[in-house]
């Protein structure tokens, strides 16, 4: 079986009487598509809610994150080990503890239990490996190596501190998923391996202008009568199509090559996408809902969304939407024969072609297994 490079995630979610994502006028964001206006949820909004979710599947809850000992060996394995074939043992032995301390903090030379958990991605490891190699090459003996690395740690103190801040967990995990572009240095930034499309309703926008007043319950009879405030807001109802694609090798690289950790991240992300609401106005509209359909696809052909299935607006009806998605996917399969492996969950009767049904737990486990396969 060929390795899957991409995991594509398609969803249908219903939110009724809500205002999920507003534009600068305070009205729901829209998308003109195929001749009708739809209600839209921006990718920025979706990602923020997945990132910040306080939930059993939150990224910060990932076991591998806080307790990942493997990540504390990255300097040993990926920075120091490659130098041993090239440079004298005493030089590397002198270099290593000082470099560990510089990266992981005080007492880091005492072993991995004394090290801070950092999620060093490919850019961090490449820079550290380059610096370590330069220091090893410049050192004539063990003493010189120790002095050299001490000088290095001192002059780059601020930079190493910034590196530590950026990669400390759980924040480092968020960057591994959603990217980091803080600097003008292309070699230090991390590309997001998770690509998120704007979600939009499969039907024409259904919106209602909600007129409301707030009444002062403590009002005395002698006060003016009437409400304290009169306002208007927009409420929309919608069945939303959402699409996410994960670059699995990219995510694994951002996790410092730790496929097990990347697998846990993907597992939890599947849950977050299915279960976390992008909602605002939580108190007044309770915009909670879980995916009524979720389709996962793993493959190595160019990822493409199924948004075009809904280019012509259909009814706000899950059965119709599931049928439309399945037919569209069947047509794409017929023309392009891209051969993705599939799993889905659905509350509708129509089933996507060549896909086996499962529960959310099974889908999340399947996604994790695909991530581990991608690393082999």
């Amino acid at each position, binding site marked *: 079986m060929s390795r899957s490079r991409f995991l594509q995630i398609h969803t249908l979610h219903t939110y009724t009487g809500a205002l999920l994502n507003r534009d600068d006028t305070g009205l729901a964001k829209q998308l003109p598509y195929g001749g009708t206006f739809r209600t839209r949820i921006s990718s*920025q909004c979706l990602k923020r809610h997945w990132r910040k979710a306080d939930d059993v599947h939150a990224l910060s809850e990932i076991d591998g994150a806080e307790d990942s000992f493997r990540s504390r060996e990255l300097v040993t394995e990926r920075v120091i080990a490659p130098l041993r074939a090239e440079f004298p043992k005493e030089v590397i032995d002198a270099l290593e503890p000082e470099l560990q301390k510089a990266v992981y903090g005080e007492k880091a030379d005492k072993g991995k239990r004394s090290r801070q958990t950092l999620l060093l991605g490919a850019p961090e490891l490449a820079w550290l490996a380059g610096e370590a190699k330069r220091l090893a090459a410049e050192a004539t003996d063990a003493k010189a190596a120790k002095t050299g690395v001490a000088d290095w740690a001192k002059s780059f103190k601020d930079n190493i*501190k*910034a590196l530590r801040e950026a990669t400390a967990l759980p924040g480092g995990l968020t960057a591994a998923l959603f990217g980091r572009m803080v600097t003008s240095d292309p070699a230090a930034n991390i590309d997001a391996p998770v*690509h998120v499309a704007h979600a939009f309703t499969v039907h024409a926008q259904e919106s209602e202008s909600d007129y409301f007043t707030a009444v002062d319950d403590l009002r005395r009879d002698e006060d003016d009568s009437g409400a304290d405030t009169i306002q208007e807001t927009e409420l929309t109802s919608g069945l939303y199509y959402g699409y996410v694609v994960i670059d699995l090798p990219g995510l694994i690289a951002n996790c410092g090559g730790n496929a097990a950790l990347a697998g846990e991240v993907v597992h939890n992300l599947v849950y977050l996408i299915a279960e976390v609401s992008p909602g605002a106005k939580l108190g007044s509209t309770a915009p909670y809902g879980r995916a009524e359909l979720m389709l996962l696809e793993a493959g190595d052909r*160019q990822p493409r969304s*199924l948004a075009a299935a809904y280019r012509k607006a259909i009814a706000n009806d899950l059965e119709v939407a599931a049928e439309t998605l399945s037919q569209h996917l069947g047509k794409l399969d017929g023309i392009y024969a891209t051969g993705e492996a599939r799993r889905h969950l659905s509350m509708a009767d129509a089933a996507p072609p060549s896909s086996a049904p499962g529960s959310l737990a099974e889908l999340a486990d399947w996604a994790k297994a695909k991530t581990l396969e991608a690393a082999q």
Partner: protein
Amino acid sequence: MSADATGTGHRWLILRLEAPLLAFGGVAIDAVGVTRDFPAVSMLTGLFANALGWDRTEVEAHQALQDRLVYGARRDRANPLGLLTDSQNAQLEARERGWTTWGRPEERGGGGQGIHRRRRDYHADACIQLVVRLDPADGTPDLDALAAALERPARPLFIGRKPCLPTHPIWAPGMEVTAPTVHAALSLLAPADDADDPPWSALWPADEGPKTGRNVHRVTALADRRNWRTGLHGGTRMVVEGCIGVSPETAP
């Protein structure tokens, strides 16, 4: 001059750029991210580099590929209401800084912390067809390698911005055409699904098609070349903005 003097014509890949939202970023000033009508040569270079799995630091390869790209674009479908402007709010953290490979951390310059508002323009519901070849043709990658990378890219492909995820394969086997020039190749393309009525607005290099006539709107110097070594855009190339109708070959 790229057109083949023998008249046998070049082989062009046909690319289909279609998604609910597309962006062809132009010069961004302050918090306003504009979009051009057509993809820039730098954007296409980035798209292809992504497909080929190149790293951002491989600047020489990016530059060489950009220098070899010969392409034109035809907009088969446009949203009659014009551009969609998305308004975004970003929360800036007080201590946001990043390490660099030159050894000094970089911080955000100027501006207050808190909510930063910005605008991003998109083409909604558009479909753009491109014809692309590489000149010289025998460099690395060649056109076949590029096509293979588009079909099985190293990373997910997006059209201008990360959320602009395509609804169709950008390239699939059989999507090619033979023609002497960009303009001739664009004229041969069958209309996209649900295309607007012709003529369609189009862009071609000044030496790859007509420079005068009823279907030429203007000849202009387009600043869409990126210097991949410095990361800055600079320099211009002459292009024609015009329109293309149904060619004699495809007319009913």
